[in-house]
């Protein structure tokens, strides 16, 4: 009976988006309530699925009753559960936040439709056990996000959305080309079956070519450094809840998750691929960090910082050791929490003061105590100050680098961590501390719903470290890193579950 949970992750947001488009326009407030309920249900089911997974192990849902590998499969393993919790938890809090924040835009119901479509796409990417379905869901999420970046329809939004859409489409073409090549080699689309076919050997050169296509395609979706140019434009231009969604979970579920799934479980890793991932990771780490330091636009700084933090995740996963993968995934979870928090803070500041320029702010601590204290927690988490969650994950990644004898990478990780501290101190100094500007003397703290989301995320930042506790670790983070580490064994486990 538990199998029925799997399609719900796609059905609920899709259905809610559909209802929203039918009724949301007519009844005021309907779309707020509907999307809050839908995302809340998703968050609850995803947390419930952690316990289910602990009891039953890997679950396969056969779409339409057709037996995989002929039919389409939805697969829920440790990594899937982990990503689902990350995505849906953040989506729920962001949907609550949008109730107040999106008041300043017209046509709120369109926003919620696109938002729910994006959630449906991301959940679909995560839960799909079929490579072509992964591509289709990826496109759903991507198209919704192009439209959401352009939501403000001002100069900057449109320009950023165009740039993002063009680069995203090129990435998708490369992914589709990779899938076409893989299909020509394996004559199947089911990821588990594909993995078995590839394991037989055959055409290693085509697999290498496909790896390059996927690295380009998914690397562009996750904004690793040579492919990062769209991110600093697209993320700041979107409305704040969407920036939080894009930086918090979209680049991870479309990029990092897909890379981890495809390279570790389907294609199988080789030392060359792993070192490519590590090099891309370290490059993103360094370049993103250095560029963030020079920014004066609050959200643009956060966007560059996302590139840098994605570098940490990629470095951890690219190490390929148990500790490295665990650290990478843990940092992925933590980053989605604190980066969403910081983007929501920037949204709250913009909501109150009407500006994103750090130089025009100052002394907001007196006027906006909740925003200021939660952003302080977010900044300290991202900079890796104990006891916040960012400290633990960075510590694990650096320890994993040392353990794998990549000392140079470890040194860079430490240095950029200090740099992160530096640019977040800059944010705190210019935005929240210091003298209150004359112009800002009349501003007010943001409404309740925005405060609620920010406080919840700040609490999660504090509590994130608890995931490492022995009892909690195995069922959540441990299960996720085991799923990645299982590598080609994924196929066998899936086929056992199908029978």
């Amino acid at each position, binding site marked *: 009976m538990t199998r029925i949970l799997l399609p719900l992750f796609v059905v609920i947001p899709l259905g809610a988006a559909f209802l929203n488009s039918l009724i949301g326009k007519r009844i005021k407030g309907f779309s707020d309530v509907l999307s809050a309920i839908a995302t809340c249900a998703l968050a609850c089911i995803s947390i419930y699925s952690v316990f289910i997974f602990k009891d039953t192990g890997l679950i396969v849902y056969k779409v339409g009753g057709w037996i995989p590998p002929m039919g389409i499969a939805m697969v829920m393993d440790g990594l899937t559960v982990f990503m689902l919790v990350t995505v849906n938890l953040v989506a729920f809090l962001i949907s609550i936040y949008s109730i107040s924040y999106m008041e300043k835009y017209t046509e709120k119901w369109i926003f919620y439709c696109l938002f729910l479509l994006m959630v449906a796409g991301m959940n679909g990417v995560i839960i799909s056990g079929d490579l072509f379905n992964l591509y289709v869901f990826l496109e759903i999420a991507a198209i919704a996000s192009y439209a959401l970046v352009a939501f403000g329809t001002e100069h900057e939004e449109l320009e950023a959305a165009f*740039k993002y859409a063009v680069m995203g489409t090129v990435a998708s073409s490369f992914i589709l080309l990779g899938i*076409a090549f893989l299909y020509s080699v394996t004559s199947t689309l089911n990821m588990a079956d594909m993995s078995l076919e590839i394991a037989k050997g055959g055409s290693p050169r085509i697999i290498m070519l496909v790896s390059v296509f996927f690295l380009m395609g998914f690397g562009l979706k996750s904004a690793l450094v040579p492919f990062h140019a769209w991110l600093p434009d697209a993320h700041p231009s979107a409305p704040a809840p969407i920036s939080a969604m894009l930086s918090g979970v979209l680049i991870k579920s479309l990029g990092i998750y897909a890379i981890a799934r495809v390279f570790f479980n389907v294609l199988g890793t080789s030392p060359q691929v792993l070192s490519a991932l590590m090099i891309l990771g370290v490059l993103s780490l360094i370049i993103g960090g250095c560029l963030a330091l020079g920014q004066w636009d609050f959200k643009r700084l956060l966007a560059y910082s996302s590139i840098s933090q994605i570098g940490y995740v990629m470095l951890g996963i690219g190490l390929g050791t148990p500790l490295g993968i665990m650290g990478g995934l843990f940092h992925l979870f933590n980053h989605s929490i604190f980066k969403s928090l910081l983007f929501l803070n920037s949204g709250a500041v913009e909501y109150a003061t009407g500006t994103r320029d750090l130089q025009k702010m100052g002394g907001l601590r007196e006027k906006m105590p909740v925003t200021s204290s939660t952003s302080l927690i977010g900044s300290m988490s991202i900079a890796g100050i104990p006891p916040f969650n960012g400290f633990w994950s960075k510590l694990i990644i650096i320890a994993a680098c040392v353990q794998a004898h990549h000392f140079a990478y470890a040194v860079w990780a430490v240095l950029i961590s200090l740099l992160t501290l530096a640019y977040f101190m800059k944010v705190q100094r210019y935005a929240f501390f210091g003298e209150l500007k004359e112009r800002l003397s009349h501003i007010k703290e943001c409404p309740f719903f925005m405060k609620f989301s920010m406080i919840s995320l700040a609490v999660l930042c504090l509590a994130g470290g608890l995931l490492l506790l022995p009892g909690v670790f195995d069922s959540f983070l441990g299960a996720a890193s085991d799923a990645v580490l299982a590598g080609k064994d994924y196929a066998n486990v899936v086929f056992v579950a199908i029978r």
Partner: protein
Amino acid sequence: MTVYFLCLVLFCIGLYCIVRKRNLIKIIIGIAIMEYSVNLFFILIGYKIGGRAPIHSSDQTILNMVDPLPQALVLTAIVIGLAVTALIAAIAIRVYEKYGTFDITKIRKLKG
């Protein structure tokens, strides 16, 4: 073999068009060309010379058939491509309304 090579050429034309052209509309056309070349490649994978559609019927036996799966996939890919093209074209029109030009070198509000 020649067909695959021509397909690659088409893909490269699309990519060249996206990378080098300055006009938004030409970039969109480049995207369309690139998508078509990928779709064409996908179809070619499943194609067999002299093959026919694998329609099951009791009174005939099919010996030489094309692989129907890539065709189904390409149908989906075409629909996705249509959605993307429509969205990008809509954005391009709005860009034109705001900036009064299709030239990407003049559309430069975002920097840094």
